[in-house]
């Protein structure tokens, strides 16, 4: 019977569909606790302290209790300890009751101590677990990471949202870096000698705890070895070709006590490597296009001669920024955080096989040339200062 067969097929298809759903999890929203930030610190007993900032959705029910402001009540911070990260995560359920829900986590923040010991063993669970998002930001703080969770949002209702926007906009200044879990793991997977992560602190000038991105942190492999100030960070970004925009300031030609601001509009970089007589040589070529954004002096900078001077000063400032990070990487850290090794391996794959072994010794000896070509294409809406 045609019809009977069809009904059997229909039920078969519907029945089998139940079995091939794979991993699924039905849970009502009110049974979940949304984690927005994760902080990892070294625990007191040499274990791992895992802290989370969770949105308190039940907030509206008890409005009016306590004198705290709305945003403070909107989130709670919980922490637990464990031998491993996963152990600590599970131990947290003992305190929370609700199931903690991680896909909306914005950032993983490492405390100073745990970062010095190495972040690779800790990041393992974040890559392995299906609930963790690969686009989560990874940050480091100079103190206890749990303290950063205390930060209150200023404009947003969630501090995690604010942090996310701050990191997305890092290109406006190019004075910090924005690295997510995926980038971090990619760099570490390619045997990169170092990683640079963003450095987050609590704004010391704000009595209410507020977030502040302050430069970057340098890792040798996965171990924290030092910090970069904002301008060194930009030097790093120049060398990576990751500068999106930003402001370069330097003294006004003619009036040394007044300053000029140039706005970076476009930038790219090229690294060339060369081996001659056993001497390694790298040339970083930067092409910048910028516009005159502001001048504090009263000299007319709009004419070609002055613009040439501006251009020259701009090149010098950029060169200085790059030089500072190159020197720091070569002399202080002896770590190739700039990725010169990768460049070298691409151009001289055979020679690289020999150099690879003692790259840590070879890298500081390499000669680095910096060439900056800049172009000023706009002076704004007014021709000259009034």
């Amino acid at each position: 019977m045609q019809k009977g067969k069809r009904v059997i097929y229909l039920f078969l298809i519907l029945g089998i569909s139940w079995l091939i759903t794979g991993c699924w999890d039905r849970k009502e929203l009110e049974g979940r606790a949304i984690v927005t930030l994760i902080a990892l610190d070294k625990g007191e007993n040499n274990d791992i302290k895992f802290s989370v900032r969770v949105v308190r959705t039940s907030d509206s029910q008890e409005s009016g209790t306590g004198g705290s402001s709305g945003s403070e009540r909107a989130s709670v911070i919980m922490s637990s300890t464990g031998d491993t990260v996963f152990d600590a995560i599970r131990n947290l359920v003992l305190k929370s009751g609700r199931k903690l829900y991680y896909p909306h986590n914005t950032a993983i923040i490492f405390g100073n101590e745990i970062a010095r010991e190495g972040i690779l063993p800790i990041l393992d669970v974040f890559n392995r677990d299906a609930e963790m998002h690969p686009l989560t930001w990874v940050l480091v703080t100079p103190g206890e990471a749990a303290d950063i969770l205390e930060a209150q949002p200023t404009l947003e209702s969630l501090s995690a949202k604010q942090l996310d926007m701050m990191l997305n906009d890092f290109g406006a200044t190019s004075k910090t870096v924005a690295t997510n879990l995926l980038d971090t793991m990619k760099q570490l997977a390619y045997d990169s000698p170092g990683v640079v992560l963003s450095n987050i602190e609590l704004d010391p000038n704000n009595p209410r705890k507020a977030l502040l991105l302050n430069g970057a942190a340098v890792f040798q492999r996965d171990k924290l070895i030092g910090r970069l100030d904002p301008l060194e960070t930009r030097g790093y970004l120049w060398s990576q070709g990751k500068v999106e925009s930003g402001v370069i300031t330097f003294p006004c030609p003619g009036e040394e006590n007044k300053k000029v601001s140039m706005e970076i509009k476009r930038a790219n970089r090229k690294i060339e490597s060369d081996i001659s007589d056993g001497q390694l040589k790298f040339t970083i070529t930067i092409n910048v296009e910028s516009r005159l954004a502001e001048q504090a002096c009263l000299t007319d900078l709009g004419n070609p001669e002055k613009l040439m001077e501006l251009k020259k000063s701009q090149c010098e400032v950029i060169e200085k920024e790059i030089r500072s990070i190159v020197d720091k990487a070569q002399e202080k850290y002896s770590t190739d955080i700039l990725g010169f090794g990768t460049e070298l391996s691409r151009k001289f794959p055979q020679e690289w096989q020999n150099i690879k072994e003692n790259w840590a010794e070879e890298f500081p000896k390499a000669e680095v040339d910096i060439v900056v070509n800049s172009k000023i294409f706009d002076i704004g809406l007014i021709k000259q200062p009034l």
Partner: protein
Amino acid sequence: MLKNLKKLRDLKKTPANGQPKTENDSRPSSNEPETEVNKLTSLLTSNLTVLKERFRGSVDIVFREFKVGFDPNKSAALIYIDGLVKAESINATILKPLMFDFAREKLWQELNQHNLLMFIRDYAVPNNRVQEFSQLQDVIDSILRGNVALLLDSFNSALIFDSKGFEGRAIIEPATESVVRGPREGFNERLGINLSLLRRKITNENLILEQLNLGTRTRTTVCFAYLKGVVNEKLVNEVRNRLQRIDIDGILESGYIEQLIEDAPVSIFPTVGNTEKPDILAAKLLEGRIGIFVDGTPIALTVPYLLVEALQSSEDYYSRPYFVTIVRWLRIASLIFALYLPALYIAIQSFHPDLIPTPLLVSMAKSREGTPFPAYVEVFIMGMIFEILREAGVRMPRPIGQAVSIVGGLVIGEAASKANLVSETVIIFVALTGIASFVIPSLGDVVPLSRLFLMTWASLLGIFGLLMGSMVLFIHLTKLRSFGIPYLAPLAPANLDDWQDVLVKAPAWTLNTRPRLLGAWNSIRGRSTRPSPKKK
């Protein structure tokens, strides 16, 4: 077994072949005695007795006996139903000529005096429509339809005069299909007026109106209209066959016919369309469709009916094409909203909260806080309340309408969320869904059912379930046919030429072909070109 019996019954009926009179004759009512008189006799008194017997003394039947032309030997009788005829017209055009003028008529004296019936028909009575019947059933049918029957002594046939004059509703703008631009007139309950409205739209002798009488008890006049030369003749035969196959005691509305002739009677999707406006019906006939009128209802049916018709409106064709295209997209979006929004909400909030931005998730979670039911139950309850309010709004006397909107809007919406019975998010989704489903009124009964179906899938298996449910729905849709035409045409099977009237509305001067599957008989609609001022 059952099927064979049905076939046998159909075979018996086939000699009818579309001719309404004989069809009714071939169906004697079972509770009549077998020894029934079928033909009129030449004796007036016996005819009257038989007729009186048949009508069994109904109060509204009038038997007016009189003598023709002052001649005591020429007995005659008028039989009609009070209220269905125009009394003045009977007095002036039938009784007066026969009783008074007849005697003075010299012509009558000169002509052959024996054929009185012929003389009355051809010379004496000024009536626009005269028929002669000798079958008793025909006479009775004619009387029931509001005609006047004249019986003469010594003649075994009756003359039927048209003198219909019953009360009806005026032609007004239909409440269901209101337009901003376009004709305001709508059909009403009288078949004759409906047919005349259609005639006035299509002034062409190829507009064919075929009549049948359906319903063994009600003998309702059903009429189907098509444009010869445009319509596919096979389709006409199919419609005629399906209509003739109907065996039911009464047809009170076109909905009876719709359910008795549709292709997929157990599907939730309608495969027969309906309209209340002559301009819409005319447009459908011009595309090669067939319209079916039923006496006593303003709703005419159109077949075949395809899904895309639900997304079209008559105004689309009367307005300039640009905004219409956007409005069509809005209708499609509304259909998608109405079908998927609650299901998507349930799926995302119960299974995939990682798919929505964090701030939205937080506000959704906040509104869920403290509500006692799972999302599915919540949406189900709110959806049910919405349908109750809608039904109350339709059934209730107009003046109480205000009360329902107050109770519905204020009490149920506001209070339910304040009392933490349902979350605000659900109220928003249910309200949006409800409004969206009003945009496509012709799918009004399909959308809530499909929505519930998809919601159930979503609540069990999340977005995966939603996809499964959609697949079931779409497989069903692709399988559906309306009078042999795929329900999803011209989307599937795809016919790019017809798409100019589906997702977009192309300007009138480019719509030169009829829908391919419908108008294959004569696919060229016109040969307009882009209008441009003539160069001198």
